[in-house]
């Protein structure tokens, strides 16, 4: 990479917003550099429900968000069809809820342009057998499931296909400011320890909650309120449709089916900015999620909990309100030139994963205006790589092919499935083959097992990487030609999985943990393999 190159745009943050901005900018012909401090989707993007909101949840309380949601929902079904599973959703009323709210809810949905059909509770039980049988009301809405990992990587891939450059494990450590203008960024390459500088006409801060700290580096203030949300993943897919409570939005009232598992969430707690990197889930959060989750689908009480995780929403105070009393969930795009007299710097924040494309469009429009570029936005019309055509629907194909096609859409044709060796399954829970691992390592910025998991779902299924982790680590070590690092990776990966299991370590989760430790620590001596390496350094 040429450090002297001058970019039109530098985008800070490899979450869905940054990836979307990079794609939009690149499609309008701008030269783009995307910088991510760890891996893509490491922040809130990778730590939510994976819910493609219909907007129904916001219809009563926030009409603007609801309308944005349903519009983007319909766009994403088209441009990101390989990332979306069209499940539909139910808003159920339980005996302790007010059935009158249902009417208000349906009217608000219709006013926002969201399809909302009241159905008989018996019909709801027939189409979604896992739902609480005590329900007294149900509304069917166009909710769906979306894979944030796939969606983000597809945006990055398309940005790169349009000439953008992208660097992971590059953390912005400072902004280059000259006479009231941001000229670029100082970064640290976490893989080499190298310090670098990159320059651009416009620097876009799309770093989620961490954007508050980026803004501070430029000497400007953006008031954010970190709102932490914890979620639980269950060991299998209990429900086939999204299940919500038909009441004012509250804690733990959404259950989303995601691939082979399902996710309940979220809690919502304001936390201090200093704690946003501590994503460990507390016992109280787990208790609350379990208690509320069982009300949506009683069988959750007896379903194994795979893991617990938490993310931080970047809520933003409405501008010019330093007290932070009026907080918006809406999109906030700040031109620091007009706001703070600091040219060449834009912050995009607020909003939600659902509206990332619209956020990117607004931001890119602002950047283009500064750069004198007047090409229109095309991101709502041109499909992402993988979604150019509908899925093949060829039932003759193997389990691994179908699983890969679910993950990579039309890009699956680039996965080698010819030889028996390439067809061999690495991860049996999720149907990940050797060929698919080769493909993501070569095409999707995979440096370690964590990256590999997010690109392919290796180790995300029922076994949580018990046996597949070692197979995957060995393959990765071979493809990247670095065996010692692959062993360290394996230990880190198991520890990372354990972080999510520890808060729910009882029942079969504790059993599985004992099994994993028995294999890797007892049988294999992985802990010793790592220390041996450190000792020889």
């Amino acid at each position: 990479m040429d450090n002297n190159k001058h970019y039109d745009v530098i985008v800070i943050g490899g979450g869905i917003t940054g990836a979307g901005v990079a794609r939009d900018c690149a499609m309008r012909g701008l030269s783009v550099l995307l910088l991510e401090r760890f891996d893509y989707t490491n922040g809130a993007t990778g730590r939510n429900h994976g819910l493609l909101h219909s907007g129904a949840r916001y219809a009563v309380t926030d009409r603007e968000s609801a309308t944005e949601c349903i519009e983007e929902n319909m766009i994403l079904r088209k441009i990101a069809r390989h990332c979306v599973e069209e499940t539909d959703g139910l808003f159920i009323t339980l005996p302790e809820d007010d059935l009158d709210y249902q009417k208000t809810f349906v009217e608000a949905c219709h006013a926002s342009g969201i399809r909302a059909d009241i159905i008989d509770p018996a019909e709801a039980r027939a189409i979604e057998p896992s739902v609480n049988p005590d329900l007294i009301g149900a509304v069917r809405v166009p909710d769906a499931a979306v894979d944030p990992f796939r969606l983000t990587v597809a945006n990055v891939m398309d940005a790169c296909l349009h000439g953008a450059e992208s660097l992971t494990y590059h953390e912005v450590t400072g902004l280059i400011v000259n006479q009231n203008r941001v000229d670029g960024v100082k970064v640290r390459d976490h893989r080499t320890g190298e310090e670098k500088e990159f320059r651009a006409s416009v620097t876009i801060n799309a770093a989620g909650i961490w954007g508050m700290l980026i803004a501070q580096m430029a000497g400007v203030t953006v008031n954010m309120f970190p709102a932490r949300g914890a979620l639980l993943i269950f060991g299998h897919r209990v429900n086939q449709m999204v299940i919500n409570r038909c009441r004012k939005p509250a804690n733990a009232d959404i259950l989303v089916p995601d691939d082979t598992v399902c996710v309940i969430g979220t809690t919502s707690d304001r936390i201090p900015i200093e704690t946003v990197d501590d994503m460990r889930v507390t016992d109280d959060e787990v208790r609350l999620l379990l208690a509320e989750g069982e009300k949506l689908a009683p069988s959750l009480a007896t379903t194994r909990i795979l893991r617990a995780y938490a993310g931080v929403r970047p809520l933003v105070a409405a501008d010019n309100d330093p007290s932070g009393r009026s907080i918006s969930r809406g999109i906030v795009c700040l031109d620091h030139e007009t706001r703070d007299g600091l040219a060449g710097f834009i912050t995009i924040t607020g909003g939600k994963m659902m509206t990332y494309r619209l956020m990117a469009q607004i931001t890119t429009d602002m950047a283009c205006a500064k750069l004198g570029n007047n090409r229109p936005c095309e991101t709502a019309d041109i499909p992402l790589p993988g979604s150019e055509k509908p899925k093949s629907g060829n039932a003759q194909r193997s389990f691994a092919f179908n699983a890969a096609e679910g993950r990579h859409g039309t890009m699956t044709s680039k996965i080698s499935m010819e030889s028996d060796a390439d067809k061999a399954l690495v991860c049996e829970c999720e149907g990940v083959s050797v060929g698919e691992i080769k493909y993501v390592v070569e095409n999707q910025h995979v440096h370690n097992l964590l990256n590999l998991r997010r690109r392919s779902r290796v180790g995300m299924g029922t076994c949580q990487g018990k046996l597949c982790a070692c197979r995957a680590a060995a393959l990765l070590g071979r493809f990247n030609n670095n065996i010692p690092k692959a062993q360290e990776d394996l230990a880190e990966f198991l520890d990372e999985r354990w972080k999510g299991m520890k808060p729910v370590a009882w029942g079969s989760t504790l059993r599985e943990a004992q099994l994993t430790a028995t294999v890797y620590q007892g049988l294999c001596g992985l802990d010793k393999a790592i220390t041996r390496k450190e000792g020889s350094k």
Partner: protein
Amino acid sequence: MKFDTIIMGGGLSGLTCGIALARTGKRVAIVAGGQNTLHFFGGSFELLGNVDGADVTNPLEAISSLDQQHPYSKMGHEQVAQLAEQAKSLLGDAGIKTSGDSARNHYRITPLGVTKPAWLTLDGLATTDRPDSLPWKKVALINLESFIDYPIDFVVEGLRALNTTVEMPTVTLECIKRARRSATEMRATNLAKVFTNTRNVAQLAEAINAVAGDVDAVLMPAVVGIDNEDASDILKAQVEKPMYFLPTLPPSVSGVRINAALRHYFQMLGGRFLLGDTVDKATLEGDRVTRVNTAKLQDTPLEADQYVLATGSFMSKGLVSNFERVYEPLLDLDTNAPKEHAQWSQFGLMGDQPFMSYGVMTDEHFRPLKDGKPLSNVYAIGQVLGGHNPLTLGDGTGVSLLTALAVAQNILDQK
């Protein structure tokens, strides 16, 4: 049905105890659920491998430094030494040939190529006397093409760290390709079935001889012969260089073989082995169990004078936990687990996890406690016992073997 002793659990400890009793003419029944932790066997039995994070040289000596709650502490030094010899000879009688010395650990080589202290290693597997070197200057580690269950690059890395030159020649065989066709069939035990056929073994030997080159020893993953050592003996005879096997990731071929050998020996001695069944109810009258019921023999209770609990730890369901507590599911025996689940584990998976040491509490005769008092005709052996962490101490299989023999002795001493 009436027996002298009923053993609940057919893993290493249950089978060992059953054999020790059946050898004296006792009528013994073992109720065995099926799979057990021998499937994770690393090729070696461990008596005591580590104390305070350091490798143990002499396990018998190091036992004195163990906690009072440790099962070995309940036996005392002398009994541990005596039972260790008894265990080795019992294994030998069952046809499991091992080498090793309870007063001096050697080292096994793990499926990641790491050395770990060991007490008895199955004959035929590679071992070394030192933690930091191998007995060979140059070896060939045979790579079976696309055997992705064996992390061979890691093993090569590990062996090279032991000051040995390692070649990794690849062997491609038609019979492996056939196994390869099903994407999930490339497990160690599947290959061991392929390499039970003598024609396939001969092909393998020929291929190894063609690629081995000028080395001191040929090593390969332990995937030859599923039932017994016949196939690996044939292979070793046909390979021109000295040849040794290395343990694999689960399922462990040698573990499967040990399991089968112990079971056959037990049955040969007249023991009743109820496979695929589990005891789901034990009737307690006062401090005595009077009968047990199994899942399959619903209406036919099993009765015995003595009952042995060999049901294993959490992963074997001998211990169960939920949001509220850790418990022993059959008799709700006293355990050493604290109430609050937040205390059961800690971050850092491969640290000293508290839950690894949980289990039932017993008196000095391994009679489990219920409400603080020992049951009079029940014993607990193996991993269902609390008071030791087999992963940090490297004592899991040793505790299983020795507590099984100690309890057999206690039962025999009673009459």
